[in-house]
């Protein structure tokens, strides 16, 4: 529709302009009329679209667009026809057409300044300067870009601190609303609306009222607490910090955006200023950051106690001169009883397949994901550099982890700081072992089971199939949820959201559990300790939450 309408109008305008250089003739007129006919098709579709406005689609100034385009089309048709005519009728027609043209093309031109049409130039600029060109060819680029701590400013404290590419991207927004529809925070009634945020940022640059926004606002905007001072308070548009802290960084908005806007990058940039310049974060988040600074763990734990739960497993600590195959990275969740069960299952199965995993022991520091998502780039880089230095002293084939957040950071964000390692998710390794027959026979479990794609494994790293291979082999009754794979609904545990703890009407994990229950599954398989914790924390649910590794272990034991 966009192509036929916009393309048609553009093409007919071009042909019309060219035809002025030639004497009036039916051929050039026909060419113009052809493209106008094409535009007409698009125009009808646009009218229809504006009659029953889909969820998330903006109204306001956008509703006038079909009329402006109609006027523009009438102008083009009128002028091209008038050129073929003679006499006073031609003049009258030309004048009538010119009036339409003034209204139509003039209106569209005005809209290109501050209104919905500015996305034409901005969209092109955004694509030209895009920081993630890998995404154009169906590739993936999800790691946050390298950040130089030495250069000011530290994050975005006023809207001018964004890069030109980012500012262009905000103008490129066509207010289609797909990001809003996909956003789990918005759906739960948290005060975040990715579409409004992008347009607020555009308005913040252009001036109050300069951007015609016809969409929905932030949920619960009237009852936002004043816990923290407003962001960009001296500028044209101020934001309540809870809008920023509601984001779980799930990237559903980015995936859905047709204009390639990077909402998550923008939010993290603003968070960086909040944390590194103003030092304003929620109390639990502040405690976690202080713990990371003082103990290199989120929970203020002893580094040497990270593997206390595994004393009976006699895990080997990697040695400098002894090359190893599989390095197990356990993460912060090794301090939690629930996740220790997942890790035990994983280790047992690796050993069953003849793989002896090694660990870093007390040298393993937090990967830094939580620090980075909260905007504390300094703490993240300190941890990252220390981890990279540690890992570089050893030789191993690959790192395996059950934590997609660690996976993402180690694989996609450490390279910018000098550490490139092969990192694999435990479901990937287990699927490979299973298919090679190294795990033995698996029984088929009768319980109906569905799979919840973790954001940081699925959308961030494109790994959807390995867990499904495993579940397909061990389950008699595997159910696929409607919102699965790259449309998976976040559990609410990413982006340090559990620490910033912003109130909404509902809780994001409650919504996801409801979807699980609606699918009819009695059990939901997960592949992330964050998802396990968030989904298990849902009260009033009888659905069992279990890691893929634990399910596989149960199935293998049942077969014996």
């Amino acid at each position, binding site marked *: 529709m966009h192509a036929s309408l916009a393309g048609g109008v553009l093409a007919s305008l071009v042909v019309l302009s060219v035809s002025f250089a030639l004497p009036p003739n039916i051929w050039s007129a026909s060419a113009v009329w052809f493209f106008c006919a094409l535009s007409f098709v698009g125009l009808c579709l646009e009218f229809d679209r504006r009659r029953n406005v889909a969820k998330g689609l903006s109204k306001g100034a956008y509703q006038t667009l079909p009329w402006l385009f109609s006027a523009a089309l009438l102008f083009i048709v009128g002028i091209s026809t008038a050129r073929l005519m003679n006499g006073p009728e031609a003049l009258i027609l030309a004048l009538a057409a010119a009036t339409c043209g003034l209204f139509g093309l003039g209106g569209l031109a005005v809209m290109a300044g501050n209104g919905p049409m500015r996305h034409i130039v901005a969209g092109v600029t955004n694509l030209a300067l895009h920081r993630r060109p890998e995404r154009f060819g169906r590739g993936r680029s999800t790691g946050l870009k390298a950040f130089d701590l030495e250069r000011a400013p530290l994050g975005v404290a006023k809207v001018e601190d964004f890069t030109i590419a980012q500012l262009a991207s905000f103008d490129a927004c066509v207010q289609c609303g797909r990001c809003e529809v996909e956003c789990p925070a918005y759906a739960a009634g948290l005060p975040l609306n990715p579409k409004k945020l992008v347009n607020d940022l555009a308005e913040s640059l252009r001036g109050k009222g300069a951007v015609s926004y016809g969409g929905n606002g932030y949920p619960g905007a009237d009852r936002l607490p004043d816990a923290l001072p407003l962001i960009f308070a001296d500028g044209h548009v101020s934001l309540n910090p809870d809008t920023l802290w509601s984001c779980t960084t799930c990237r559903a908005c980015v995936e859905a955006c047709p204009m390639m806007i990077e909402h998550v990058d923008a939010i993290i940039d603003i968070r960086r200023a909040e944390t590194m310049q103003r030092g304003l974060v929620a109390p*639990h988040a502040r405690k976690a950051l202080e713990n990371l600074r003082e103990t290199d763990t989120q929970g203020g734990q002893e580094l040497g106690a990270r593997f206390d739960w595994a004393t009976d497993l006699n895990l080997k600590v990697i040695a400098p001169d002894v090359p190893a195959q599989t390095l197990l990275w356990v993460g912060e969740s090794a301090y939690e009883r629930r996740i220790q069960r997942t890790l035990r299952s994983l280790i047992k199965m690796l050993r069953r397949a003849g793989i002896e995993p090694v660990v870093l022991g007390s040298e393993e520091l937090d990967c830094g994901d939580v620090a980075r998502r909260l905007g504390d780039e300094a703490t993240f880089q300190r941890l990252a550099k220390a981890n990279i230095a540690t890992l570089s002293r050893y030789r191993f084939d690959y790192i395996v982890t059950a934590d997609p957040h660690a996976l993402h950071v180690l694989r996609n964000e450490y390279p910018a700081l000098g550490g490139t390692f092969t990192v694999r998710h435990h479901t990937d390794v287990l699927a490979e072992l299973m298919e090679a027959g190294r795990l033995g026979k698996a029984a088929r479990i009768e319980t109906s089971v569905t799979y919840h794609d973790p954001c940081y494994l699925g959308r961030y790293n494109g790994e959807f199939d390995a867990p499904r291979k495993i579940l397909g082999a061990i389950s008699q009754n595997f159910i696929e949820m409607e919102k699965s794979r790259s449309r998976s609904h976040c559990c609410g545990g990413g982006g340090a959201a*559990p620490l910033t*703890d912003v*109130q909404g009407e509902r*809780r994001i994990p409650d919504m996801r559990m409801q979807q699980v229950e609606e699918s009819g599954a009695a059990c939901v398989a997960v592949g992330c300790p964050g998802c396990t914790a968030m989904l298990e924390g849902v*009260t009033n649910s009888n659905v069992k939450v279990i890691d893929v590794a634990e399910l596989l272990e149960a199935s293998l034991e049942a077969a014996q």
Partner: protein
Amino acid sequence: MSNRLNPHKMLGEIAPTSGLRRLNRLAPLKASTVSVVARVNPHNEYRARLRRELRQADVVHRQTVSAQSRKPLHVVADSAPLAFVIGLGVEAWAGAEAELLGTAREILPESAIALVSLGKINCTPSEDGADRLIEGPAGLEEHNFDALLALVDEYKPQHLIFAEGGHSSDLARRYVARTKAEAAFNVVQVRAGQVTCLIDGGKREFTRKVPPVIALSRIACAKLDAEMLYEARPLALPEIAATDAAFKDAGVRVASARDLPLSEAELVVSAGAGLTDWDSFHAVAEGLSAAVAGSRVVCDAGSLPRSRQVGASGQIIESRCYLAFGISGAPQHLQGIQACRHVIAVNTDPHAPMMKRADLAIVADAQAVLKEMQLLLNKGGAA
């Protein structure tokens, strides 16, 4: 000295652990049947003592009741060295005054222990171990300091014993700063003539001879068992050269149950999901002068602000008593109340984890119990 005064001497000159002497005092008639062990591992000894005391509980109870009228009086000469135990109107912790007296007697068995009470007396001096008693007026820290200086000047005690906590810690340090007396702070263990102090932020300890000024932590203290009476002879209060406090007292503000910070509340009343009668809940909290709290579900629903949430993702509290109404006790919630001394739970489910944790567990409808408590509190306490 007769054996009654120093029963441990009956067993020969063995340096006793404090617990062993307690045992003797509980059952002096049975002292001879107790086997003598020197330098017992205190943890084993604790458990063994607990078992013995539980067995002898009946005996003790019967004995105490009948022995009340026959208790001997501990008399100490005026020439004995004097020790002040400083008691302030508001105790550093519940029962601190009595415990300070008992512990003072342990550290200084030869001294005359004088209770200096600046403000309300919080113990029973004659039963808790005061040979002498000096009562002074309550006041701000600066006034207490003036009073103490005058008292020390008048009676010249050899030792001063304070509690670590609240006003008492402050008074002890003011005194030491002024007089440059040798002092032991943060004392965690005592014996006759010796104290063990914590230093280095609580990570290290050292043991030393008893100095003139001692500030005792709660952990070091235990009160006497009332097996004898003490004179508690009043001593006169000298003239106090009162100086005006540089910063005047502009009054005390009491926080309401909704505003009282959870970290400071000694009593907390907590609501679980399913509570709907918030009026009686808040009324009971006000009536008990307790702070209000709630489980995560209650705070998620907005019935209480997030700052009132107790648990791993809320606040970890250390109140003395926690009343849980209709709370089942998820692991994260129990984590939040780990340090609470007493837990009272009212729940319709007898198998809820909170009921196991509770020191007083009642199977009943929390709503109805709250209503009844509100009525009782309105009537002004138990009948």
